[in-house]
């Protein structure tokens, strides 16, 4: 019936063998795609490869036993059963070797599967009078020569494996994602690992008939890996992997027919091209996206250097061209300026970039950071000539707490080693901000908010405090009280006294 139908169709579809190949390829692709998802997530790719190679020993053994015991030539069920047994034995041996010795699993896989593959090859050549297996056929596969039996087997395996995976989806998901937790809620991880290994063995056995020993692992993992790049959910990954696998199988077959090349090779080649294309353009995990994200990213150093550059020319501002040196390439500069403008840190007129009040505050913080770092480096004994350069790198590390601690460690210096003023933290001038009196600069007036025990005699809360001077070494804070009395605070006392800035009378002295 199928033959009659085929005769009516155009092109390669008019050949019965092609339709059969197509059916087998779709079935195998479907099951490979879905199973492959679990295989790559459990990092079992190499194991899949091992199973496919080890099979040959089982196939040869099955062939030999049926031939010698019952005189049957190429008994398919026996060879299939032998393949499965060989797969299970290989997995068992791998597990045994890696658990009883210090040999790691990947090495154990390598040892065991080559060993058992070699056993198969030796068996086939030793009993070459009895076993008529074409090794080349086994290794390369021949999808265009599938038999009805192969299709039935593929359908059976496909149905069984898919049913298992759908039925126990959650169990497979949980034991692949977090085996410890899965065990804790009573999912027998060992059982499901074994079940998955069995599924993989079945899938590999039917896959080998189509694309051969070498390519079957690609059929298993490539569509799954392609899907992995596109989604963040396991169920969608499985659906996508199945679609990719089927697409690859169908397109590959047409390609093979059109160019008259080996079917297995054409299918795998198409799958690999498909993967490469997705790797390039995948929206989230693709190479192109990563590249675009990377060039769009503007490091904080660049925007901060622009702000610092503008502060030096404040309030005149600078032309964008003058900033090119700071920000590197022009494209980057454009993006950096756009971002700063969006954040409200700068204002732009046709040919002039200026700091906004917000940007000025940020720039002052950066200058403060730079000069505190310079003081710290000098304090730590760094060579004077290198100080500026190093501070330029370090100024981008300006975590407020860090700067506060450094400033305190240095005894709240007012000037850096080059004699330039270290700007005060701009935050201190905001209403409601409480800070230590040690941060006041000469000429500033503040309101006392909290008084430590040992200063209670002289100072009260809400009393104004005027800082007249710091002595040259910076170790004393000379204050003047409203009564006109002079009060000298040392570092610890100035730290302990909490004040709020009095902006109104900031620049005027008591009369």
């Amino acid at each position: 019936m199928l033959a009659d139908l085929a005769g009516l169709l155009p092109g390669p579809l008019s050949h019965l063998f092609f339709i059969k190949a197509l059916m087998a390829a779709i079935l195998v692709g479907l099951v490979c795609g879905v199973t492959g998802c679990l295989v790559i997530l459990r990092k079992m790719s190499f194991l899949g490869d091992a199973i496919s190679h080890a099979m040959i020993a089982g196939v040869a053994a099955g062939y030999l036993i049926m031939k010698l015991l019952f005189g049957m030539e190429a008994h398919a069920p026996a060879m299939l059963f032998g393949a499965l047994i060989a797969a299970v034995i290989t997995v068992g041996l791998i597990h045994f070797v890696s658990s009883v010795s210090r040999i790691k699993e990947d090495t154990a896989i390598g040892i065991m599967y080559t060993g058992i593959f070699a056993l198969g090859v030796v068996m086939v050549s030793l009993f070459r009078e009895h076993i008529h297996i074409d090794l080349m056929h086994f290794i390369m596969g021949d999808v265009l020569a599938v038999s009805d039996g192969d299709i039935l087997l593929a359908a059976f395996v496909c149905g069984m494996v898919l049913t298992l995976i759908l039925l126990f989806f959650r169990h497979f998901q949980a034991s692949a994602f977090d085996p410890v937790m899965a065990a804790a809620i009573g999912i027998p991880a060992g059982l499901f690992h074994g079940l998955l290994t069995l599924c993989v063995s079945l899938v590999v056995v039917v896959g080998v008939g189509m694309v051969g020993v070498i390519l079957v692992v690609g059929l298993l993992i490539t569509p799954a890996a392609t899907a992995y790049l596109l989604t963040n959910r396991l169920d969608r990954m499985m659906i996508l992997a199945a679609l990719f696998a089927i697409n690859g199988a169908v397109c590959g077959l047409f390609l093979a027919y059109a160019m008259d090349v080996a079917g297995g090779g054409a299918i795998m080649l198409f799958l690999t091209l498909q993967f490469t294309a997705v790797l390039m353009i995948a929206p989230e995990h693709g190479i192109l996206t990563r590249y675009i994200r990377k060039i769009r990213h503007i490091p904080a150093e660049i925007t901060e250097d622009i702000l610092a550059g503008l502060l030096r020319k404040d309030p005149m501002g600078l032309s964008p061209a003058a900033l090119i040196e700071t920000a590197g390439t022009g494209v980057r500069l454009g993006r950096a300026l756009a971002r700063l403008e969006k954040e409200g840190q700068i204002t732009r007129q046709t040919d002039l970039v200026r700091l906004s009040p917000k940007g000025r505050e940020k720039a002052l913080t950066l200058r403060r950071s730079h000069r505190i770092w310079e003081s710290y480096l000098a304090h730590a004994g760094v060579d004077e000539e290198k100080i500026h350069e190093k501070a330029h790198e370090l100024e981008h590390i300006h975590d407020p707490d860090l700067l506060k601690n450094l400033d305190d460690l240095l005894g709240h210096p007012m000037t850096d080693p080059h004699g330039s003023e270290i700007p005060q933290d701009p935050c201190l001038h905001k209403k409601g901000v409480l800070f230590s009196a040690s941060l006041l600069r000469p000429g500033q007036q503040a309101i006392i908010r909290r008084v430590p025990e040992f200063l209670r005699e002289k100072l009260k809360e809400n009393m104004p405090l005027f800082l007249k001077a710091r002595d040259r070494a910076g170790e004393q804070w000379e204050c003047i009280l409203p009564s006109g009395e002079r009060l000298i605070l040392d570092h610890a006392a100035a730290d302990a006294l909490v004040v709020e800035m009095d902006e109104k009378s900031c620049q005027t002295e008591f009369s």
Partner: protein
Amino acid sequence: MVRSSSFSPSLPPAGAAMDNLLPAIRTRHLTVSYGLRPALLDVNLDIPKGTLVGILGPNGAGKSTLIKALMGFVKKDVGRVEIMGEPAEKAKGRMAYVPQRSSVDWDFPITVEEVALMGRYGRIPWYRNPGKKDREAALKALRAVRMEDFGQRQIGALSGGQQQRVFMARALCQGADILLLDEPFAGVDAVTEKAILTVLKEAREQGLTLVVVHHDLATAASYFDRIALIKRGLVAFGRPEDVLQKELLSEVYGGQMQNFFTLPSINPKP
């Protein structure tokens, strides 16, 4: 405070625990070895219900092993573990475990919501799919840890602290009475640490018992109701002020202690 020694012939009788209630977790002579080396030796511990307990000790002292032994992940040589008065083997569903961050594949294709939903897997029979009730429970747990807005994100796309909170949500919707957490504060910033601590304390207010492996002596006192100090065996168990004694700590930490007593301080606070 119970000062535990390897030879403790007279154990406190049952009912001697706080409020005359059965302890949430009770271990007797719990001993676990890896190979020939005992990792835990004769641990006798009574953790009262509704407390937030910190497990402290130097590296390799057996903190994680204790948690794993309570969960039944490692085989115990001798001793027993009782959960709410029942043998641990019978009380599997009553304990939930929040793993150390490193034990999970962060590239796994799974969303935050699905991870939380996983907490319900233990109570759904194998032939049924998660229902509406299960999804609601997962969402509620995500709200409890304030991660409800991230439901559709892939788990690896979150920060370390957020991931930690999602795993706590998963444990919460398991409906367990006891939560065991392995180093939840490892590798998170100070703000996240506060957020996680808040979730822990809220869980305690709901009556849960929480056992937390912790490594930071400096914060332990303010975080926990009880502290178990471990070095292979249980050295001390009790209120923080009783356990965090210089003498006990130097016994446990030995040379490592210097760092704790001479914390570098460049900013003497008023």
